């Protein structure tokens, strides 16, 4: 009796395994298709994740990553006891907060106003012009900024000295101006992009809402605040929460290329990403660089989880996962 049950179970298991094998065989081609991508993800993403142990080690090149001696939390202690940890965190967070506010307000304004324009051709011309700064590299942006700010002949100093009879300013060594400059540069490069995304969301709104509102005698302003804004709120929310969840990340090109990596500007332009780069390449301090990188990754990880939870609570369909 017992053996019969056992046998039956075995047969079932056999058919289950063989069904599984048959399935694998049937989908063999599809599984093979994913192999190049899998290998790439392992090399580019998963091996470096294992490499976070570097943050807990003192790397010596002749011993390699694995055999280098453990240093416990020394790298973190060193990082968080230095004034750098606070400064780079403050800079990264504050820049991002201002970027989010300025870009969102400006992009919404542009998106709503583009929607008011009747001519299709002119509307398209505006859109593609506003998007132009988004497609050039930060190196090109650095040249454009240099055209305005270089000390001897930049446009701003030329105007200052010629028309306002003021002294020229050494922009690339005066740290105090850069929070403003970088906010402008970032808006120049990215606000147009964001406005196009918001504009696409506005176009998607059913025109009947507006017709009904007009029949009821709603003004343009009323239509904007009572229809347009509430209906694109999910998109605004998602874009903003995505930005908030990467509040500890910064655009390396903006803070390194556009400032021309100028030393005197470091106090106001050093962010976590430039710090990680400088620690590794200029100081050769792999442990400290890894520690700062891990600190950034871990905080961002929890911020993304939190942001997703928040979106899900607000609107289940628009959550990321």
């Amino acid at each position, binding site marked *: 009796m017992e053996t019969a049950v056992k046998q039956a179970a075995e047969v079932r298991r056999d058919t289950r395994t063989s069904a599984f094998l048959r399935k694998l065989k049937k989908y063999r081609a599809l599984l093979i298709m994913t192999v190049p991508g899998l290998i790439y993800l392992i090399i580019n993403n998963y091996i470096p994740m294992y490499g976070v142990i570097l943050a807990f080690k003192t790397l010596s090149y002749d011993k390699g990553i694995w055999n280098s001696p453990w240093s416990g939390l020394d790298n973190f202690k060193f990082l968080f006891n230095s004034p750098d940890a606070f400064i780079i965190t403050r800079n990264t967070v504050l820049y991002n907060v201002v970027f989010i506010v300025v870009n969102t307000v400006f992009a919404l304004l542009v998106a709503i106003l583009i929607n008011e324009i009747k*001519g299709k051709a002119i509307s398209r011309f505006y859109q593609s012009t506003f998007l132009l700064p988004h497609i050039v590299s930060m190196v090109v942006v650095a*040249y454009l900024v240099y055209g305005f700010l270089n000390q001897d002949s930049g446009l701003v100093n030329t105007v200052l000295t010629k028309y306002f009879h003021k002294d020229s300013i050494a922009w690339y060594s005066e740290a105090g101006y850069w929070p403003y400059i970088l906010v402008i540069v970032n808006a120049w490069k990215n606000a147009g992009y964001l406005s*196009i995304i918001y504009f*696409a969301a506005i176009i998607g709104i059913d025109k009947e809402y507006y017709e009904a509102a007009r029949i009821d005698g709603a003004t343009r302003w009323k239509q904007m605040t009572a229809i347009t804004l509430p209906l694109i709120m999910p998109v605004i929310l998602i874009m903003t929460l995505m930005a908030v969840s990467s509040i500890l990340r910064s655009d390396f090109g903006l803070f390194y290329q556009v400032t021309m990596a100028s030393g005197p500007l470091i106090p106001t332009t050093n962010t976590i990403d430039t710090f990680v780069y400088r620690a590794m390449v200029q100081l050769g301090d792999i442990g400290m660089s890894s520690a700062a990188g891990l600190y950034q990754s871990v905080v961002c990880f929890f911020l993304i989880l939190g942001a997703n939870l928040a979106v899900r609570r607000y609107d289940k369909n628009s959550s990321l996962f």
Partner: protein
Amino acid sequence: MTGAMNSRHPFIHLFFWLFVLFSLVPFLLVFMVSISGEESILKHGYSLFPSEFSTGAYSFLFNDFSTIAKAYGVTIAVTLIGTVVSLLITCLYAYPLSRPDMPFRRTLSFFLFFTMLFGGGMAPWYLTYVNMFGIKNTLLSMIIPNLLLSAFNVLLMRSFFSTSIPDSILESATIDGASEWTIFKSIVIPLSLPIVATIGLFNVLAYWNDWYNCMLFIDKQELYNIQYLMTKTLNNVQYLIMKAGSNAQAGEQLAKMPRETVRMAFAVVGVAPLLAAYPFFQRFYISGITSGAVKG
């Protein structure tokens, strides 16, 4: 166009024209400096309306174009190879994820998605490539790290596949005895050309504009791409003529170099191909980013 201008919102157009100026003036300034006379720059500084025009900067650049041509060669080669390989890997990973009956589908999705949530950071990533795979100072280092597969693009493509390719077509092809590879090659890809083209464009821009990988992995000047050569030249305009050749020759050239205008002329040469191509791909690019943001 004029009809729209005469509409009842003159202030809206005024606002937008100011924004247009804000977007374009920086480019215009660089261009105007590049065609200014060096003398007038030294005397009056950069100006949108230079008092004296000269093509001296360009003739200086084109006099010995080999450094720039080589950098462009690297950029073009990397962009071409990178875009094609990247598209291939992206399609191949995205298609199985779009099939609801695929085994391990959730696992494979998560394996991809997790890379968007967490990363090891730059130092371990850099050491992986340099120490384990030894790709420093090779073209591969500008093609592979970070740029070859974007999780975001895979997700975009997967949602296109699953919404735009009817299951019935796949089923009837299977009944007709077509293999998965044939289905992928002759049905899925031809039906998905819009998304393939969009992601191809994203790839082209990413490779064309990349300087980060070049900065990290390349020490040899003959392997610099155009973006990194531009970075080096911005910090030190002599960089353009510092390549090999005798010192005496370089010194002589240096003396003749109209520095301020050459720098900006090089910026123009560096950005010109992209700006020239922009009118042709802009509408396509706009529809690409909006479909990505709204659907993805």
